[in-house]
């Protein structure tokens, strides 16, 4: 009953979704509650509702991405919106057009929502300041990936029925991970206890200020954990050549069945994908009964439908929103 009451009181006011840092606990709960309703639609014979009929969603991706882009595309189509995909390799971006100009052109084309993935932290926020239509951050540099954070939290909440008090371990390249940052913002706002775990070189200095515990030993971190969120080791990003080698990483931090057996019996294993079998997670765990990795993929559609839905509700009444 409390969730229902929360729904009644809380109003969505944000034009954009740039990061979980800028949302309140109530905002996050509203998105998750509504995602529950959208999750049910995905199991219907006709998986489509007319809520965003006549709206246009533009996917603007400056970084390669299949799963996030497809997930947003499916989410928008399930809401009856029209979807345009712009892959920047084949667009006028190659001719030197700036991000803001591209954004304003998309706005002039009468699109309603831009979903942007960019390798620079802050790109989505800058775009949001220069256009009046809604902007969704689908990952900006090392900063945030809010819909991934929301779908991870949604998956936790569906499994445990609550988020408050859950012990969640995030293991992997914390320093370069926007997924980790969004998870930390969201989880701590909802009252979960977050531990980050990685080799010292992959832990950003000062991360404790975000309200997390830091551990460098994964076996210690997994004691009492309700869930472990395994990040992909992004070896392609190791420009300074400081990462441990793959075998060493798997030995010291890889999530193996051996480690899962020593953890809580019903611990759940999450991964934002794509998974590297035998590097950060063993096949046995990825395909095992503790894994919710594919559930996350399905939940991602529902969460993104919810975000698209609420942004389309806000734009009509509340004009430009300034986050800084």
């Amino acid at each position: 009953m409390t969730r229902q009451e929360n729904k009644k009181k809380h109003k969505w006011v944000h034009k954009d979704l740039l990061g979980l840092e800028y949302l309140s606990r109530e905002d996050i709960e509203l998105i998750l509650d509504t995602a529950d309703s959208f999750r049910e639609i995905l199991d219907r014979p006709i998986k489509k509702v007319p809520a965003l009929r006549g709206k246009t969603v533009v996917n603007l991706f400056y970084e390669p991405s299949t799963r996030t882009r497809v997930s947003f595309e499916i989410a928008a189509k399930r809401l009856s919106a029209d979807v345009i995909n712009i892959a920047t390799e084949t667009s006028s971006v190659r001719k030197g057009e700036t991000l803001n100009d591209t954004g304003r052109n998309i706005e002039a084309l009468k699109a309603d929502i831009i979903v942007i993935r960019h390798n620079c932290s802050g790109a989505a926020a800058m775009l949001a300041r220069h256009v009046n239509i809604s902007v969704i951050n689908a990952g900006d540099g090392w900063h945030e990936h809010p819909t991934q954070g929301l779908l991870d939290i949604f998956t936790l909440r569906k499994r445990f029925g609550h988020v408050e008090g859950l012990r969640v371990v995030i293991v992997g390249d914390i320093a370069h991970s926007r997924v980790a940052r969004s998870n930390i913002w969201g989880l701590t706002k909802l009252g979960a206890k977050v531990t980050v775990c990685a080799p010292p070189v992959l832990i950003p200095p000062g991360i404790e200020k975000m309200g997390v515990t830091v551990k460098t030993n994964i076996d210690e971190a997994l004691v009492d954990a309700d869930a472990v969120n395994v990040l992909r080791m992004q070896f392609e990003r190791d420009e300074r050549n400081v990462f441990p080698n793959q075998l060493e990483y798997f030995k010291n931090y890889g999530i193996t069945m051996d480690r899962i057996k020593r953890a809580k019996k019903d611990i759940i294993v999450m991964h934002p994908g794509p998974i590297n079998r035998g590097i950060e997670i063993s096949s046995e765990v990825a395909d095992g009964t503790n894994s919710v990795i594919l559930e996350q993929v399905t939940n991602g559609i529902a969460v993104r439908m919810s975000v698209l839905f609420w942004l389309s509700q806000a734009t009509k009444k509340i004009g430009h929103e300034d986050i800084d």
Partner: protein
Amino acid sequence: MQTKKEVLTKDEIDRLITRLSHEIVEKNKGVSTLAIVGIRTRGYIIAKRIAKVIEEQYNARLDVGALDITFYRDDLGLASEQPVVHNTEIDFDIEGKDIILIDDVLYTGRTVRCGLDALMDFGRPKTIQLAVLIDRGHRELPIKADYVGKNLPTSQSEIVEVKLEEVDGESGVFIINRQDDQTGEQEKT
């Protein structure tokens, strides 16, 4: 100032629901193909009550579902109030069934239009029949109820408020005259 007048008491509501239940079974010549779907929030409460009466009186078991019509509304983004989203729960096959769609108040007909569209996304029922506790008139779409608890002539400046114990803690139907009413309570369609 607003005035509030009780037009149906708890007992009267109970009797209307019992009568509606019998009418539904009579018109469908039995219960074998019946299933009941209520529109959130109060339509679903009434649906559960009707199902209970039919199950007890006819020694049957009925499928009961809840429908939230928010995503089908024609005023999304236009209404002054943000929508409140609830869950839809229809965990049975509606294919070939006689579906009784239930709402508390029939007014403009727009909610029922949403309900019909939403139901069709679950399959192809044999029939959909509409049952309402109150029909207050002022239709804006060509929609008519098959079963009406009570016809209640109203003016458009009035609000019909249905209260049911399960969600409101009390039962009764009230007409609120909202002349000079500043609260702007969301209109029930």
